[in-house]
């Protein structure tokens, strides 16, 4: 286990007009580990992911990647760094096939012409590397795939680029039991291959099944970031619903010195 985080967020703020969604949020992502990002609806998980992915720009705070400060202004910046996001709503084009989707926005070219054979070969190798056997043809339209297969394609798309951090937004939300197990297995395999994985999930079973660390967001603040082995199921639920659990989490009235609970109480009043 590496001692230094691959991706490090400190004091990140994000507002949409008068609504402040993220308050001084911090997050560490380590290589070879699955970090679960949990929180109730509206806690700011998706916003945080979009900030990392460059879809939103952060208002304040720092992002450190592999030890140096970086500024991420667009999805291209994020992918250039090696950060890939698999979105909840998948972000696949139904009218394109698997290969076309996996290379979308980063097509391999030979001259001005798309290099289809190379792309098809690389897509096949990547799926093989992830031990995906469920896809019949690489040239079938994504629209004809099942939910689990679509999720697999989306994840394979994210790892195709020698990426170092993969963020998965609710990858199992719409899946059946068997497909969920498949996708979780895939998530674990990504981390075992040395990637830093961030898993956003509502499902505590999924979280405890694969994650090494758990980061809990509560109303836009990072309540706690702990090792999965150090907490129980119910402690995590308390962190999600109340923002604290025993001496973990956000302070009640006075600060209890938790590193992640750096709040300025008047900051969001307006």
């Amino acid at each position: 286990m590496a001692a230094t985080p691959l991706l490090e967020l400190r004091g990140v703020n994000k507002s949409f007009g008068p609504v402040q969604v993220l308050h001084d949020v911090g997050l560490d992502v380590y290589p070879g580990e699955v970090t679960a990002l949990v929180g109730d609806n509206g806690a700011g998980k998706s916003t945080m992911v979009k900030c990392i992915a460059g879809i939103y720009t952060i208002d304040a705070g720092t992002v450190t990647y592999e030890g140096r400060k970086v500024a991420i202004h667009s999805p291209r910046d994020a992918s250039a760094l090696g950060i890939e996001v698999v979105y909840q709503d998948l972000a696949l084009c139904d009218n394109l096939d698997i290969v076309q989707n996996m290379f979308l926005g980063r097509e391999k070219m030979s001259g001005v012409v798309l290099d289809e054979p190379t792309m098809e070969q690389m897509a096949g190798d990547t799926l093989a590397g992830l031990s995906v056997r469920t896809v019949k043809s690489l040239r079938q339209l994504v629209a004809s795939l099942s939910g689990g297969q679509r999720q697999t394609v989306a994840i394979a798309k994210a790892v195709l680029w020698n990426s170092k951090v993969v963020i998965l937004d609710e990858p199992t939300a719409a899946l059946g039991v068997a497909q969920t197990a498949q996708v979780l297995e895939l998530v674990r395999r990504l981390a075992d291959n040395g990637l830093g994985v961030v898993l956003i999930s509502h499902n505590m079973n999924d979280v405890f099944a694969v994650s090494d660390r758990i980061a809990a967001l509560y109303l836009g603040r990072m309540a706690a970031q702990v090792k999965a082995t150090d907490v129980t199921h119910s402690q995590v639920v308390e962190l999600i619903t109340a923002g604290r659990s025993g001496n973990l989490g956000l302070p009640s009235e006075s600060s209890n010195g938790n590193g992640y609970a750096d709040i300025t109480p008047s900051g969001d009043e307006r």
Partner: protein
Amino acid sequence: MSTTTTPAETGKPEVAKPTAASHLNAYWRRVRGGDIGSLPAILGLIVLCLIFGSARETFVSALNFANLFSQSAQVIFIAMGLVFVLLLGEIDLSAGFASGVCGAIMAILLADHGWPWWGAIPAAMLTGVVIGFMLGLLVAKLGIPSFVVTLAAFLGFQGVLLRLLGGGKNISINNSFVLKLANSNLSVTMSWIMVIVAVLGYAAVQFNQIRSRASRGLVTDPLGIVLMRIGGLAVLLVVATAVLTHERSINPAINSVRGVPIVAPIIAVFLIIWTFVLGRTRYGRHVYAVGGNSEAARRAGIPVDRIRISVFVIGSFMASIGGILIVSRANSVDPNTGGSNILLYSVGAAVIGGTSLFGGKGKVINAVIGGAVIAVIDNGMTLMGYAAGTKYIVTGLILLVAASVDALSRRRAASSGAR
């Protein structure tokens, strides 16, 4: 990730080498699943030709066949441009009058300012590009629905055309090069050379594709199917050219009329260029992606706004070429050039050919096939002596049928999981 080079036996999807029969089977399954493409239009075209051909002998004459090209050229060109706009789920209602404005600019430069054709034609094309850029900018950057933007432009360009023509006069052109574009034919030798080049070129592309895929151990289309495609194209072109190289002048001694109309290779060149752009380049892939799911495209780092602007530019550019050809065919431009039913015929051509009104699905060839259907209806019904009213009703009904096929195949695709 470092595991992308893992040996294939760990689970690379193994696909059996398809035979001609399994290929046809797969095609039939796709059709039944709602992915029908141009099939209804091609069937419709055959049926219409049989009906008109049996009712009026003149319909199948070489002269009439040649006429179909120049009659449908403007609609086909506007429709080819509209395919790009429709692929994004947008619409361009101003394309008809945009083509009229571009044609008028060419005519004015030629007739009133004495410009040579090589100045006037690019000027008309540039006008098309500028028009498309403005439309695209309003749609993409201001976020006005394209229906409204182009409806406003439809009215506006109608006015621009009237003003350009000084309140409604008719400008004639006598530039021989421009007049030849829509009214002359290739020589018989040249016609056959074009056919040979086209068939050999198509075969070369097909075999090259097979070779490059096979050399990497990827699945290729069965040889029988490829030969069938090449053979089909060859038969179609040879028969058409054989008919067109027949003497079709009423009095050959005075004025011999033989050969493929020049518009046919012009259509073919643009068809090939745009098919290449849509199918084989990064830009084309991005157009489909934005049409299929613009949010996914944006997250993939595709400049969605620029793509949106560019399709309007292509749409109006193609409309300008349509305008040049219609002015060439009529020898003049008047306030109704590109007006009346041209635009609706063009949208109809794209949709009848199989381009989806919902975006993300369509090919440039759809515009040509759909344009042929429209031209055949128009031409055939005129020959049979129907009134204009009846023609419009029938064309309208056929467009409605095409749109229903599009909507139904979408529903069917949704239920069969194939989109």
